[in-house]
């Protein structure tokens, strides 16, 4: 089908974009990479949509190491995440996640800000933000505010963004010295949405584990994290995953299959991040 568009405007600055967004009173959508939005428009799921194209806003780009955080601009494309040496060294889970996102022709356009704002439950990057303890930087008419990833993803396709707010960047704490991270997923076709996925960061005071594709949002597996932090092994952690995850039954897999796959991924991620002395 063809996209139904109520109008299009190119934002010329961040403040212009915020002004347009506020003036549209919730009727306009930001067009970043468009790899989910334009698909939804083509399917007529999005209704007749007015678009604010933010692709020209260079202030939303760039990947920089800034103090103790990796700052990734909202317009950073998935391919840039996959090839950035800074991301590979300071947030390796994100570097591992990026090649798992859709296909090459989609990674050249899709953006980290778009992925987080869309909050697809099967998307990789929201889970990365949770596991790595990232902060989402948001601009609105009142200026900038920072939202912890744990407070950002509210429900299915629902975030803490207000109607007149947009993501400008994310701030990801550097991986600790010796910290190992892993992003893994299981999908029916490479590049398709994961049936289940995991992001694991082994920090000094215990692992942080986020799952995606197994519930309405990416979520931390707090029970499994607690078991591992107190010295329990992978089997003990896998055994309590049913306290953390409540996957849906759907046409792709029954809930029991998704829970099983989550346990498989937890074991694999723990093995992949095993250090020599652990």
């Amino acid at each position: 089908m063809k996209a139904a568009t109520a109008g299009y405007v190119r934002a010329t600055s961040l403040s212009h974009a915020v002004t347009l967004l506020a003036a549209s009173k919730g009727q306009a959508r930001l067009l970043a990479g468009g790899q989910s939005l334009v698909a939804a428009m083509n399917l007529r799921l999005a209704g007749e949509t007015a678009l604010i194209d933010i692709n020209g806003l260079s202030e939303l780009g760039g990947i920089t190491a800034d103090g103790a955080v990796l700052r990734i601009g909202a317009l950073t494309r998935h391919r840039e995440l996959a090839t950035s040496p800074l991301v590979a060294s300071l947030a390796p889970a994100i570097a591992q996640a990026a090649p798992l996102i859709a296909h090459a022709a989609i990674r050249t356009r899709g953006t980290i800000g778009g992925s987080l704002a869309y909050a697809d439950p099967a998307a990789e990057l929201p889970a990365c933000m949770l596991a790595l303890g990232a902060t989402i930087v948001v601009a609105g008419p009142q200026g900038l505010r920072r939202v912890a990833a744990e407070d950002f993803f509210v429900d299915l396709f629902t975030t803490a963004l207000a109607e007149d707010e947009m993501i400008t960047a994310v701030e990801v704490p550097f991986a600790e010295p010796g910290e190992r991270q892993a992003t893994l997923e299981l999908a029916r076709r490479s590049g398709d949405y994961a049936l289940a996925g995991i992001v694991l960061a082994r920090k000094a005071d215990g692992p942080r584990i986020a799952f995606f594709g197994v519930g309405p949002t990416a979520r931390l597996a707090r029970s499994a994290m607690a078991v591992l932090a107190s010295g329990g092994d992978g089997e003990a952690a896998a055994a309590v995953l049913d306290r953390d995850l409540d996957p849906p039954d759907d046409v792709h897999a029954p809930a029991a299959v998704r829970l099983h796959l989550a346990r498989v991924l937890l074991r694999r991620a723990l093995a992949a991040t095993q250090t020599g002395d652990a």
Partner: protein
Amino acid sequence: MTDMPPDFARKVDIRLTVNGETVEARVDAGRHLVDFLRLDLGLTGAHAGCEHGVCGACTLKVDGDIVRGCLVLAAQLDGAEVWTVEGLTDSGALADLQDAFVARNALQCGFCTPGMLVAAADLLADGGVPSRAEIREHISGNYCRCTGYEAIVDAIETVARARAGTEAAA
């Protein structure tokens, strides 16, 4: 949507280059790149398949990178450089891949072939000889409904080896 601010336009003027030639156009704000090429410019090489980013039949090059022609709006392309399978064919950039696709019978109905060629060229542009697994990964976003994948992977591998000088061209 009658109360949208006047900033929002339903028609957008764009100026871009397509296959090396300058094009000026006024397009509907919702016009896909692949429809702009096919319906407005008559460049029907890239195919509109699923129109939601899954099948890869509309794979095109924009500013040097492959994109989904159904997930990019023409309105966004002011100043962009677009290459279609026609332009890439005329330039000779795909000649060895096209010869190998013919030699290996790497197509049946041919609907997916333009997208396959553009995706394959993108992979081989990085140089070296990708493994068959890497070839499969790179074309994982391109459906062949005739399931001709084995021959397609053969053809791409043949060209990679030939370009690297490790094996005579097929």
